């Protein structure tokens, strides 16, 4: 038990030191469900045999005992600030490739980023005391951290030698930066014709809107990508439902979303290129992925829609203009998502509500316009449906609403905050969040989505690293450069 203390909090400063327990906080608050508790769910479905087989063969806990898909693939990654090239490298790392991330000796500025600029949220290496931002640690999974100043001649020589043996080179630098230094795709492919060179950026390394830098050298970062592909314009609540400046505005994602999408596509394209090279006798090649375009690739049908009848998608907040019901709306203690489009589900929603609100069926189910599944997506139909839905919801808290709706076999669920996500029984059982022992002490992290596989699950081995932690190992292994030489370069500021 923690010791009881009397404290007085007058400002945020008084809370510093109270929050960081030097260890993970008590987690989970309630224990995860046991197999014995889950078994009845399997039995009820009459699928116990299959479910047991699934647990036996897919279970998260068995991941380290299985092989890694990309053993032997060598990846080098250079880039700063952004998550695109980092998440891409992490995917390679999680699937077993040997990944080396190159940073300048001064380190990636992302290491210093911390929520609201508060240094007390920096993580601290338990052995060395070196500090690092949480975002950096979360997005560098299984990568070796090596320092090298590629703006020096020595650095360029070293980089060239390292690049001559890699399968994949991930470039997250500004357009033409590497080429200007003489270590871009054009120059490197000669020594390593099998190399797949993946540039990951915001808008492009060429073309009228290519990535820019400010007069002072500041880079473009997300959400510039999602602003350039209409994604931000199309997200958020309509000004008709909430005033401008208070949420009725185009809205960015809470995360650097385009970076993640570009990273995933970079990984897919790189592996496709390797397949062509190895299986079909091809060569290396250049791949270019941008956040704006990778996000545009998956922006539903929005641009196609413009070509159809000059529609420009507007914002629809928590509602989806393509399906009804398919939305979240406010409820007593937050937001509740309800989905059910086909007639069966649509009427089931009504039957559920009618237990508390007898008028719902009268006003919704009897309206002739709302009887046809497609017609229900008309704007006024959404307004009517969700007004009455919310009238039911405002009397329910999320648990009550979910319990009632699930009795009618509906896909329904609350908007959860991260503390609730981490305590969600299914999340704890899989587990989708778990405590991983890192160089920064035990940290609560999210597991990789591809960790659940029969043969080669993805896995996190380590995350984050001190700056230049792997210098000696990698320079020896990749270049045969001994520690004295490395130290010499260190003194010159090259490494």
């Amino acid at each position, binding site marked *: 038990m923690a010791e009881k203390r009397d404290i007085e909090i007058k400002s945020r400063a008084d809370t510093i030191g109270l929050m960081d*327990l030097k260890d993970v*906080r008590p987690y989970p608050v309630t224990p995860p469900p046991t197999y014995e508790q889950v078994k009845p769910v399997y039995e009820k479905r009459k699928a116990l045999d299959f479910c047991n087989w699934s647990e036996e*063969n897919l279970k998260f806990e068995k991941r380290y005992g299985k092989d890694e898909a990309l053993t032997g693939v060598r990846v080098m990654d250079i880039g700063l600030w952004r998550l695109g090239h980092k998440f891409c490298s992490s995917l390679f790392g999680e699937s077993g490739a040997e990944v080396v991330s190159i940073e300048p000796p001064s380190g990636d500025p992302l290491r210093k*980023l911390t*929520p*609201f*600029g508060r240094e007390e949220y920096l993580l601290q290496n338990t052995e060395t005391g070196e500090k690092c931002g949480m*975002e950096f640690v*979360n997005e560098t999974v299984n990568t070796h951290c090596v320092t090298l100043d590629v703006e020096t001649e020595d650095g360029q020589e070293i980089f060239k030698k390292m690049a001559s043996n890699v399968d994949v080179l991930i470039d997250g630098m500004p357009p033409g930066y590497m080429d200007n230094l003489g270590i871009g795709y054009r120059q490197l492919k000669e020594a390593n014709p099998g190399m797949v060179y993946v540039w990951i950026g915001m808008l492009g390394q060429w*073309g*009228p809107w290519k990535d820019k830098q400010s*007069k002072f050298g500041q880079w473009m970062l997300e*959400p510039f990508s999602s602003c*350039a*592909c209409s*994604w931000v*314009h*199309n997200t958020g609540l309509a000004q008709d439902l909430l005033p401008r*400046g*208070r949420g009725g*505005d185009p809205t*960015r994602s*809470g*995360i650097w979303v385009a970076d*993640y999408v570009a990273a995933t596509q*970079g990984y*897919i394209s790189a*592996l*496709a290129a390797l397949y062509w090279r190895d299986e079909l006798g091809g060569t290396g090649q250049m791949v270019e992925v941008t956040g704006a*375009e990778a996000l*545009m690739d998956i922006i*539903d049908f*929005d*641009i196609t*829609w*413009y*070509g*159809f*009848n000059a529609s420009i*998608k507007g914002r629809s*907040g*928590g509602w989806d203009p*393509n399906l009804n019901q*398919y939305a979240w709306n406010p409820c007593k203690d937050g937001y509740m*998502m309800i989905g059910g489009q086909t007639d069966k589900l649509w009427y089931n929603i009504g039957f559920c509500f009618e237990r508390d609100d007898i008028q719902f069926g009268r006003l919704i189910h009897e309206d002739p316009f709302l009887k046809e599944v*497609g017609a229900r*997506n008309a704007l006024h139909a959404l307004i009517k449906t969700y007004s009455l839905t919310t009238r039911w919801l405002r009397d329910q808290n999320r648990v009550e609403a979910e319990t009632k709706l699930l009795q009618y*076999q509906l896909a329904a669920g609350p908007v959860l*905050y991260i503390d609730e*996500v981490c305590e969600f*029984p*299914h*999340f704890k059982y899989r587990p989708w969040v778990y405590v991983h022992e890192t160089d920064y002490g035990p940290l*609560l992290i*999210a597991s990789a*989505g*591809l960790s*659940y596989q*029969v*043969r080669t699950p993805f896995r996190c081995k380590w995350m984050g690293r001190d700056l230049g932690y792997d210098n000696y190992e990698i320079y020896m292994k990749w270049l045969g450069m001994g520690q004295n030489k490395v130290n010499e370069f260190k003194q010159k500021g090259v490494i």
Partner: protein
Amino acid sequence: MAKDPRVTRIEDLPGPKSKGELEEMKMPYEEYCKKIFDVGNEHIKPNALKGIKWLSCTMYIFTPNSVVNLAELGAEVIKIEMPRMGDAMRHTSPFNECYLYPLHDTRPMTGTGLGFTNANNNKYFLTMDYHIPEMREHFYALVKKFDGLTELYRPGTMDKWKIGYRQLSEINPRFIYVWGGGFGYGPKMFGGSYDILGQAHAGLASVTGMHEYMGGHATKHTNWIIDWESGNIITSGIMAAIHWRRKTGLGTMLEMSQVQTPTRLLGYTTTMYGKFGIVRQRWGNWDTQLAVHGIILCGKSDFPDADNPQDKFDARYVMVSAFQDADFKELCAITGLKNLYEKYKSRNQRCEGEAQVEIYAALEKWAADKSRSQVAKILQDAGILAEPVRNDREVYESPHYRERGTVRWLDDPLFGDMLLHSGYSAGLMEKTPRRVNWHWRPVGADNKRIYRDKLGIPLSKIQEWYDKAWI
């Protein structure tokens, strides 16, 4: 190396080997990139995944998207739909307005809605009621010829129908079997799921939208982002599995649950809760780790006289970024907010919540009598990063995407002139580019092509099955 060591051959020397190569090296980098990606000539280059064959028992967006990536990279993909009905996604269209006809010859009044777009490019469309025992043998015949399958049924359903991983891996040990769904094994194993449930359940919605104290609400990402991105992640897993299979000859099964996807993409959120007990909230159009790095509202629209309301009312937002000291100093100078620079000189000071509230309010006040393009121009001229928030029309008209071929028109074989913004945009590849041949095809459009030409079923039999609604 030349046989005679006294002979110096140009190909043995470092540097360009021919005049063409020399010119290539001298070319400005941008031009070089443009030349190697050679937009418009994708189809004469090889397919990266030539020879890979994939089956798709999928619906909606999530699992179809995991397969469409393969189809665009050159794999041969057959999508199997239920006879007459087809994928439920065919019946979704924004505000019920946009459909392309026909869905199937027997339903001349029903179309496929635009909701189906982009997740089904290049696929061949087969109908088969694979849950009836009569069709099982033919399903197996496909499995023997194919590299893998993606399906989305509630867990155990395919197993019950004897076409699950446990049965198929015996028929074809190289088979890569993918289940994509909501939850996977565990207490909610049989829970249904949608994209929006993933956004809601896994924490993404809780950090997107304006802050509560501003009167804001949690907002949905405009697209079915969790469906799409989870699909992309599945494709990643498939590519890794194919890579491993080259070495071992063994197939595998992937279980991929979309509901968890956003949690992995939440950056520091989970760790911050675990270590400090702090529950991240929404922070609207600003950034929690950088300031200034956010979207501001300008006083005037760029197109006040436009007919389309999106142009008329909403061309008012600019993304402004000046988080480094020099940039922030310049931003304050150009907007007459020098006092703010004096007040918040360090990057960390500017990031504090109260500071951000003050800074953005001041910037919006400065922009209150200006249009979006005026604001962007003033800042760009001062060397600061600022870009308008663009809408669909502006994306369509953008010279950038046109030149890069990522927005282009496709003369669809069956549906005619359709604008395309997927496939080519997923990533440019120099030697084995992605490509799109068609948006989609009607339900069962390739029945004859597959049943007769691939499986050798007599035409009379195909007709018989069709009449029985087995296919």
